[in-house]
């Protein structure tokens, strides 16, 4: 089997273009997520309608701008001017003061301010309104402290595991999860489908190599490649973006291998069902990768998904692997805390490997 393995390796190494992409992709993704993509709100353009322009309203407006979240794109003269600004996409939110804001607050102890969000992008609208509310509430508290009024219950908050609230803590594990899945599953399924398409699979099957040996020979190179990739992503995360590595390296490596086995088995399974490369690719991309990206909790929180999708998410290996990486690298926990996830992955691995092997033997 060894010469067979060697041939597979050489074959992969010779395809420079694919290799470049296999390694370039995760690096590009990590860099993208790190430097370009973030959900943080910063300098969101807003419009202000402040007819009176008194001390209170101006102070409040300045406080909003000073937070860094908002940036005044334009000052409006009347309410009718708001809609066109939204339609053109120039502002994300409008801040509207009544003409007697300061006076009402001082004399009647009560004033209203209006926030209009552009919910064409609900994520941003929600966040912006959230932030604005918090800042206005802070202003209210400060205003009241100045007058000695009661404060009520306050909360002291602590950001556990990630006090500096760095986005990298969330996306590096996510990217790792995706990459390991991508290389192991997608590449495997395509490679095997290729042999089928070109007819060389039959040649292999009549050779003295046993099916399991053929499978291993084809998949081990990709296993190692994706491991290498994972290492690169982790190193990037640690040294470029400051991710911690608080847990055991051995445990991390072991869990990665486990996850890769699961992905591999998925890849083999897909290849047994696809008749050519294009089909294998479509199945991997649309059937595997998209759901992984979107249902595993990597980008969108699972708790707010409909029940059905949450359940489907549980069948996705990435959903279980993500917390494992975060647990080991960021929280620094050991196997006891990750027992459930590990066992689920282990079960998936065994089940899928058995299923794929059986399929592989039955179908050509």
């Amino acid at each position, binding site marked *: 089997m060894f010469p067979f393995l060697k041939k597979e390796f050489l074959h992969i190494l010779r395809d420079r273009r694919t290799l470049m992409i296999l390694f370039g992709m995760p690096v590009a993704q990590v860099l993208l997520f790190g430097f370009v993509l973030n959900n943080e709100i910063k300098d969101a353009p807003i419009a202000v309608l402040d007819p009176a322009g008194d001390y209170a309203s101006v102070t409040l407006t300045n406080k909003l701008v000073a937070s860094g979240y908002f940036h005044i794109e334009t000052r409006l003269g009347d309410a009718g001017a708001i809609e066109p600004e939204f339609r053109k996409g120039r502002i994300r939110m409008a801040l509207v003061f009544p003409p007697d804001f300061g006076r009402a607050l001082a004399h009647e102890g009560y004033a209203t301010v209006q926030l209009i969000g552009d919910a064409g992008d609900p994520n941003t*609208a929600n966040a912006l309104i959230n932030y604005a509310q918090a800042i*206005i509430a802070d202003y209210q508290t400060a205003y009241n402290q100045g007058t000695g009024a009661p404060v009520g219950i306050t909360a002291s908050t602590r950001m556990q595991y990630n006090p500096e609230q760095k*986005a990298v803590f969330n996306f590096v594990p996510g990217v790792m999860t995706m990459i390991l899945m991508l290389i192991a599953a997608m590449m495997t399924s395509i490679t095997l489908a290729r042999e089928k398409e070109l007819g060389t699979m039959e040649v292999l099957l009549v050779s003295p190599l046993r099916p399991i040996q053929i499978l291993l020979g084809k998949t081990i190179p990709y296993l190692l490649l994706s491991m290498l990739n994972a290492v690169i992503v982790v190193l990037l995360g640690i040294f470029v973006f400051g991710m911690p590595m608080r847990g055991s390296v051995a445990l991390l490596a072991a869990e990665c291998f486990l996850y890769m086995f699961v992905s591999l088995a998925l890849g083999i399974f897909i290849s047994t069902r696809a008749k050519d490369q294009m089909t294998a690719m479509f199945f991997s991309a649309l059937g595997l990768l998209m759901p992984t990206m979107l249902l595993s909790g990597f980008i969108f929180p699972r708790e707010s998904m409909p029940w059905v999708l949450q359940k489907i998410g549980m069948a996705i290996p990435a959903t279980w692997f993500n917390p494992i990486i975060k647990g080991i690298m960021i929280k620094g926990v050991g196997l006891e805390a990750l027992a459930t996830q590990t066992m689920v992955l282990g079960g998936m691995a065994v089940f899928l490997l058995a299923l794929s092997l059986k399929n592989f033997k039955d179908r050509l």
Partner: protein
Amino acid sequence: MPVLFFLIQKEFLQIFRNRIMLPLLLIMPVFQTVLLSFAANYEIKNLAIAVTDHDRSATSRALIRKFTASGYFRLAALPADAKSAEAELATDRADLLLEIPPQMERDFVREKRATIRITANAINAVKAGMAIGYAGNMLRDFNQELLAGSPAAAPARIEIAYSNWYNPRLDYKTFMVPGILGLIVSMIICFLTALNIVREREIGTIEQMNVTPAPKWTFILGKLIPFWLLSLVMMAVGLTVGRLLFDIPMEGSLGLVFLYTLFFTPCMLGLGFLISNFSDTQQQGMFTAWFFLVICILMSGLFTPLESMPDWAQWMNLLNPIRYFVEFMRLVLLKGAGFEDIRHNFLSVLTYAVLVNSLAVATYQKRVS
């Protein structure tokens, strides 16, 4: 151009004969769009909280109820001490810890102030930030209710009236469905084009074509036109389902949407073709296309806002066709923007399509060097 006719005819014959691919193409986008639109939102709901209540008073219980009744949080555990609370956080059984100090009610009654501790799992910093924001709002409301009946001077209060235009219920589907649909159709079309051509190269049929007098651009058009039409069908099916299932507002004229898709798809087709010119095997083509598409999708503004990207990234985005598409969909399908408003976008897309297709034709070699 009769030659073109024969080429297009051949392409369609092949497409319809592919029993697996054709249904896949029609069903997949719709299926994916439906599935993923339900998933794709950043709302905070049902976060698990673990509460350590050292006070066990009526006030503390009322406070806990306020949190759990909101829908944002659900009570996952009631650990007795700090250590077991930490364990809940460590095993992901809870996302947020609430610690109510002993004698909170007494402090509150006496001095009208008390402090509770909230610890959030901040690995997903944005989620944690939002959660803490909501918690803060809840506390403020709670305070309002508690202090309303107190004899002391009431504090000044700023009432915030907020509304959301274009999507009053903050329904993420309205926003995500057209975007994701366009995304998936674009992706599929780009892949199909690239792979189709590379496949012909791999199996050798392209050589037979190259030896005929058919000019380059005829061959290229013969590939692009069928896929172009295919993408229109896919969009039509998708939009219809979207309208029926999700009741997406279609304020902008539907005709405008189609017109746009007519001019936008060539961008993806040209891109796919360009990639095929530089790929020797289907595998290479797949991965190259995948590489570019994932980056384009992530940077398109669908999942994260364009404004928060650094300047250099926004410049790069000018080369990203999907970015234009997302912007258009949002403006037209949600805000009812008219042609004037999107003219700039439209022209950019036209330019892009012309450029990328010219490049594809220029780099296609009937004669290999």
